[in-house]
């Protein structure tokens, strides 16, 4: 079991950050109130050469040291160098994660890179720089660059550096790149890591991790072909036609930790205003593919649902605008979050009721809260945003759209990654829970593959997604069932309020639970976060025996033998239920006993020992028993064994479903016969 004490320092640093006067009272020259520390600020001027697929960039970075230690280095992420060649750590990890992003199908022009030509102090000398590989020592990795400063930046001090660079836009890797004249450009410029304690938190780019940065103000000029429709983090504050077939778009946004943009001549721009009592209005800008225009309302509705419910549950969305991007077909850029902008992902045909694009839209809109506003370290604790957001997505979807119907997509051209083009919705088959059955299955299959407390970047890239997204969402849903939403919601709202525009650590969340849950939950977090135990409770046996059974009993004349009576006519039964804990995980559970006369008894069991016997005497025989009848413990990896009937009734249902399978088999056999 890992110890939590190692993270306490983070809490202290975060507390220091919180009381920094710059956070709450700084007023920029423009008059806006700083919501964050704004200690990593960027001015970027970039020009896209669409023929060569190159970005030519000049940027000024103003970094303020908000920590208590000095540093004489600046560490930058150069994310796009992950796709510079096959020797990068990202490409190495991508090969063994089992879900290759691109596989071997990479042409010469598909690779990407970020080549920094110059790093100098503003108006000063060129800085020495080197590449670093702090995570795995991979000398071929170029995703982290260290620039040495001539003098240390003291606490509260500031440094201004200027960089020039060229970046080759890749054919999409990790949701960034081009397809035709569609561009989605994320994590594209030299970007500072986060100075924490006395060192830089600037990890190499890994195949299964995301990002971590300080908050700041971004002022970005994008020079692009003039017919391109542009979407970006922030608001467009200026557009200038250059008279040479290009236009320069200037976007500006404060209190964000990344800047992302997209451009395509095909986008259709739609706008709608989100207005709900008690929440600030938000201008929603939807950049839609023309062929998806009929689904515009669905995108707006899903975005509004997220803004409203996350806003009410956790805290208001503060930016006043959001750009919703419907990515181009096959671009691989869908389903991703960036500050004040996110990508959805729909298809030409997507029947309503199947959960898509609503689910992905709600999820990515929700990341504006968990990731955008609460900016956790995704290199080390990706679950803090992905898990909290997946849980919240499930709640929004459940509350707004109800149970999703099951959809299968047909016409998957062989040998392609196209997915099925033609969906069929099976309206009778529905997924009723906040946590979907497929998510439960993913967790079940990866319940013990990684420990969530282990740093995300060290986790197995093929399984960590199931831990970050599924396991976290499932234990949060379990806590909701255990504590009640009326307890959990204020906890999450407090965590949000306390850590908005900050960098919370796992302990910070647990501390809020400790404060507000009204009970010590360490026993729970020790199991679900610091360990990888599996939960599984079962009803092992259900029996009812007549109290007046045969045998020797004390009578008026001493021991008397009573022969076996008619058990059916007995007027009292001893009902016995054996409940077992099959997994290592422990959780208090209820056991429901339902009797033939319709009466019910609920008993609690602390779930600690390996088994327990529950008995009930009464006039009726047991019909069945269920451990955890309300499915509080969603972490249980086998729900089927949670219940048991005294007399099995499994013949008819098994024949029913086998008969349906048999019809499929008969048709399959006829298909085989068609080859004769």
């Amino acid at each position: 079991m890992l110890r939590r004490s190692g993270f306490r320092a983070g809490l202290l640093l975060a507390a220091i950050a919180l009381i920094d006067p710059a956070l709450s009272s700084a007023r920029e020259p423009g008059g806006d109130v700083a919501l964050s520390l704004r200690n990593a600020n960027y001015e970027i001027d970039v020009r896209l050469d669409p023929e060569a697929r190159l970005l030519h960039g000049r940027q000024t970075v103003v970094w303020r040291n908000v920590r208590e230690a000095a540093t004489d280095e600046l560490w930058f992420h150069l994310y796009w160098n992950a796709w510079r060649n096959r020797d990068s750590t990202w490409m190495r990890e991508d090969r063994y994660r089992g879900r290759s992003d691109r596989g071997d199908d990479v042409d010469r022009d598909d690779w990407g890179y970020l080549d920094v030509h110059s790093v100098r102090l503003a108006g000063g000398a060129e800085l020495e720089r080197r590449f670093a590989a702090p995570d795995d020592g991979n000398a071929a990795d170029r995703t982290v660059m260290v620039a040495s400063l001539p003098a240390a930046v003291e606490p509260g001090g500031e440094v201004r550096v200027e960089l020039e660079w060229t970046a080759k836009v890749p054919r999409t890797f990790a949701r960034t790149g081009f397809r035709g004249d569609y561009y989605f450009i994320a994590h594209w410029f030299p970007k500072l890591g986060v100075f924490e304690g006395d060192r830089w938190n600037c990890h190499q780019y890994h195949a299964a991790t995301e990002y971590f940065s300080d908050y700041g103000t971004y002022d970005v000029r994008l020079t692009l072909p003039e017919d391109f429709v542009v979407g970006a983090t922030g608001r467009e504050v200026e557009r200038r036609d250059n008279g040479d077939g290009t236009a320069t778009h200037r976007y500006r946004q404060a209190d964000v930790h990344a800047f992302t943009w997209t451009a395509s001549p095909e986008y259709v721009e739609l706008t709608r205003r989100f207005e709900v009592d008690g929440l600030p209005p938000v201008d929603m800008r939807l950049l839609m593919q023309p062929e998806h225009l009929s689904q515009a309302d669905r995108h707006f509705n899903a975005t509004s649902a997220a803004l409203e419910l996350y806003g009410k549950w956790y805290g208001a969305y503060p930016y006043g605008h959001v750009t919703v991007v419907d990515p181009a077909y096959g671009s691989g850029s869908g389903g991703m979050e960036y500050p004040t902008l996110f990508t959805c992902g729909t298809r030409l045909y997507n029947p309503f009721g199947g959960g898509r694009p609503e689910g992905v839209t709600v999820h990515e809109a929700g990341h504006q809260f968990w990731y955008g506003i609460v900016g956790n370290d995704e290199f080390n604790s990706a679950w803090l945003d992905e898990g909290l957001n997946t849980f919240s997505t499930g709640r929004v979807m459940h509350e707004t759209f109800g149970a999703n119907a099951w959809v299968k997509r047909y016409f998957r051209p062989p040998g392609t990654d196209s997915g099925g083009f033609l969906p069929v919705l099976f309206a009778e088959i529905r997924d009723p829970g906040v946590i979907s059955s497929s998510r439960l299955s993913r967790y079940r299959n990866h319940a013990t593959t990684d420990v969530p407390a282990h740093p995300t970047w060290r986790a197995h890239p093929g399984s960590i997604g199931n831990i970050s997204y599924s396991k976290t969402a499932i234990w949060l849903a379990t806590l909701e069932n255990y504590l009640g939403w009326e307890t959990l919601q204020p906890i999450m709202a407090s965590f949000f309020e306390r850590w908005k525009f900050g960098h919370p650590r796992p302990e910070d969340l647990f501390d809020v639970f400790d404060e507000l849950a009204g009970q010590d939950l360490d026993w729970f977090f020790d199991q679900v976060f610091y360990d990888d135990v599996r939960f599984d409770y079962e009803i092992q046996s259900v029996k009812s025996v007549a109290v007046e059974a045969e045998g020797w009993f004390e009578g008026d004349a001493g021991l008397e033998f009573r022969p076996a009576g008619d058990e059916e006519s007995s007027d009292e039964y001893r009902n016995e239920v054996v409940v077992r804990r099959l997994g290592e995980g422990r959780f208090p559970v209820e056991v429901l006993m339902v009797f033939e006369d319709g009466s019910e008894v609920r008993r609690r069991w602390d779930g600690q020992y390996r088994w327990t016997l529950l008995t009930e005497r009464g006039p009726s025989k047991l019909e069945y028993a269920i451990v955890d009848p309300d499915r509080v413990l969603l972490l249980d990896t086998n729900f089927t064994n949670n219940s048991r009937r005294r007399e099995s009734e499994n013949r008819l249902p098994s024949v029913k479903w086998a008969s349906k399978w048999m019809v499929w088999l008969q048709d399959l056999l006829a298909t085989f016969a068609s080859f004769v």
Partner: protein
Amino acid sequence: MTGPIRSAINGAARLSRVRRLLVWLWIANLLFALPLAFQVSASIERSIGASQVGRTLLERLDLIWHTEYQDASEGVSATLEPSQVGVGAFLDNLELWFSGEIFELDPGLIAAGALYALLWALLIGGALGYLQSGARPTLRGFFGSGGEFFFRFVRVTVLMAGLYYLVYRFSEWLFESLEYRTRDVTVEKSVLSVYLLAAALVVLLLVLVRMISDYAKVAIVMEDRRSALLASLRGVRFVLSHPIGTLGVVLIVGVAGLVVLYLYSLVAPGVGQSTWTTVVLAFLVSQLFLIARLALRLTLLGAELDLYERASPLAANADYD
């Protein structure tokens, strides 16, 4: 186009004269599927155990149970899918046939499919004989003629397997190439249009192989050809020399198949059967669809026989009792 229409009508008429063939083929299909269905039923029964899930499964498909069942199952039992409800069963198999993934199924299912294909090679011989003669079918005659043609039909099937292999490899290459060539196309509708055209070509090639296979068998039955290779070449020649007729017959029967599928979609049982009566009734409704599918197959064979007969009037007729 009157030729294929007439042949299709005559094909249906031939089938109507030997209706009991349909029953025999259906029973064969049913009996062949039963052992595996028992296996799956037992597997589901074990999974449910004495739990309350059984009750739920009578009302609906419990997706949580289904994922638990699938995660814990292996082999044939693990192939139970939600999409096998109603017309989804047919669509699943159509997808498997089109993509060639039918040969990537669980080995147990492939083995069953291969055995059934062998059985079908026996049955189809008997069926073709009676479809040609129109005589009242008897089991003895049915299996007699089936046995007579069995090995020749198997050899034809082996030859056609090579062609099918080539078509599926071509299909994979074609779609991979198209995916590469359309990798800068940002409009799904455009890509889908290209893929649909390619799919039409692949389906045409698959149907072409099927037609060659059918006419090779027709030639074996009608002309008592001994060589599977020569019969197959005869099939190739016949299809190429009568493209409208041969393809027209397939199209007409195909359209009839779409009509059957549509009608089935209106009455196809869902997931709500909760009594023995409704479970059996749902099963029987589905069997009607399978019988219709078999009837269409026999109609196609009858129509192909008719077309072949009319195009080759001197073809030798064999006698059958």
